[in-house]
């Protein structure tokens, strides 16, 4: 039920993000979702891509520090309160969201939110029990 996300360490200077995008483009890797977190000195780019093994290798060969993490892709009804109900069931179990980012697919009534939890397995359990749709990694990469 987990999905694989790659994360990249970026120094906060011009051209680094462009370099990542260029390497992925040359390797013909498609970016499904992304989030960039930044501080004054550095940033962390998190990506869901069409082929994370290849992406990881390409970026590592390009000299970047690349990590991989288990995240959970959750389908959230595109209606008011959709996100709240999910967060509510998680927080009532004491599960913390480390970070999250969302994307809305074209012609869809649902949004997809990528979650990084402090306790991933337990979060999946809670969500499944409550009938929430979790998008498996393989589906996510080829969306």
């Amino acid at each position: 039920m987990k999905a694989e996300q790659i994360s990249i360490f970026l120094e906060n200077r011009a051209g680094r993000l462009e370099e990542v995008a260029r390497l992925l483009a040359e390797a013909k890797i498609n970016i499904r979702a992304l989030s960039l977190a930044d501080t004054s000195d550095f940033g962390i780019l998190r990506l869901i891509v069409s082929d994370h093994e290849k992406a990881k290798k390409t970026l590592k060969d390009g000299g970047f520090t690349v990590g991989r993490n288990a995240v959970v892709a959750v389908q959230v009804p595109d209606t008011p309160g959709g996100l709240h109900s999910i967060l509510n069931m998680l927080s009532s179990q004491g599960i913390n969201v480390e970070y999250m980012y969302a994307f809305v697919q074209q012609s869809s009534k649902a949004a997809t939110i990528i979650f990084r939890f402090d306790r991933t397995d337990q979060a999946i359990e809670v969500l499944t029990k409550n009938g929430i749709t979790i998008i498996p990694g393989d589906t996510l990469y080829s969306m």
Partner: protein
Amino acid sequence: MIFDDDMETLPREELEVLQLRRLKGLVDRVYANVPFYRKSFDDAGIRPSDIQSLADVRYLPFTEKQDLRNHYPYGLFAVPKDNVVRIHASSGTTGKATVVGYTKRDVENWATLMARSLVAAGATKRDIIHVAYGYGLFTGGLGAHYGAERLGATTIPMSGGSTKRQVILLRDFGATVICCTPSYSLFLYETALESGIDIKELPLRIGVFGAEPWTEEMRRDIETKLGIKAIDIYGLSEIMGPGVGIECIEAQAGAHLQEDHFLLEIIDPVTKEPLPPGETGELVITTLCKEAQPLIRYRTRDITSLNFTPCRCGRTFARMHRVMGRSDDMLIIRGVNVFPSQIESILLETQGLTPHYQLLVKREGNLDTLEVQVEVDEKIFSDEIKNLQRLGGKIQKHIKEFLGVTAAVKLVEPRSIQRSEGKAKRIVDMRNSS
């Protein structure tokens, strides 16, 4: 066990009487026989008869590595060349080689000091000593070899290289003591494992390690992996070679320096003034007994401190703290002495690994600033910002705690710090460039 009970446990008062007698003899000899020293004494307005106490040594001029180079190859010899039986030399990677000559007696003394060292490390004449230091102009191999023979142990003159063969012979000959660099011991361990040999299962029990700086963490690593006691030996070719000092197996807490042969001082590397006992500074050694090429107040450039408290092994010789750095690459930041090696140990303790790092020193207004750049590799990277910021904060806190200096810690991408061919360039000092 002590090899030379009379000398190694000599009460300090008697030791000092002996040292003063030897110092006076030495000063007379070099003044009479070495033009370099005669001139430098004259220039400093010192006559040999001015040396009346050990403290008077501070009036004598220093000898530096450059002096050896300037008198390459034989210019500092104090005896006729006929009396010189052996020559050693440093590799000369940073300039001309430094050449050191030995008389027959020097070689014998060296063997004795090395035998003492092996015994302090826990070896006996019943041991089989595998010498994997290089033989040749480098002092390691022959120094350890003659010491092992002087002790009466079975000596294996393996020298360096052919690591696979070393492993086989370690096993077949049943060596119980090995002399090599600490990093080579780990390489031997890994090579052995590849051939299905666990060094821990062999009779090897002691490693006498020197010729490169190492840490407590590395010692623990070696001791666990190889199942041996790892002992730090100190020496430098200009003074003698291995055996200038060694840790005792009883305490493993600082190398006892052989004070009957060497007069020790710790000086402030900047003011060059002697420092009180226990203070940290540069080790300066005067060779009390050397005949062929005695050195007066040789600046070792090694930063350390001396511990004169009695050791549980019974030896009265002072112990030196593990070398903390080299005075050649000391930084002074807002009046505080900082060595790259100290930062390295802090990084090691903070993260349990040695990342690539660099120290950037700048002056903002009248204030020095230190930035420690640490490359983020996969072992320390996290997808969560708070973890990386916590790491930076932890490094900063440890630097403040251990060195008293506030440093900015900057996490940088791998390979963003310039690599150099030889030794890593750890310091970029921009204070004088603007």
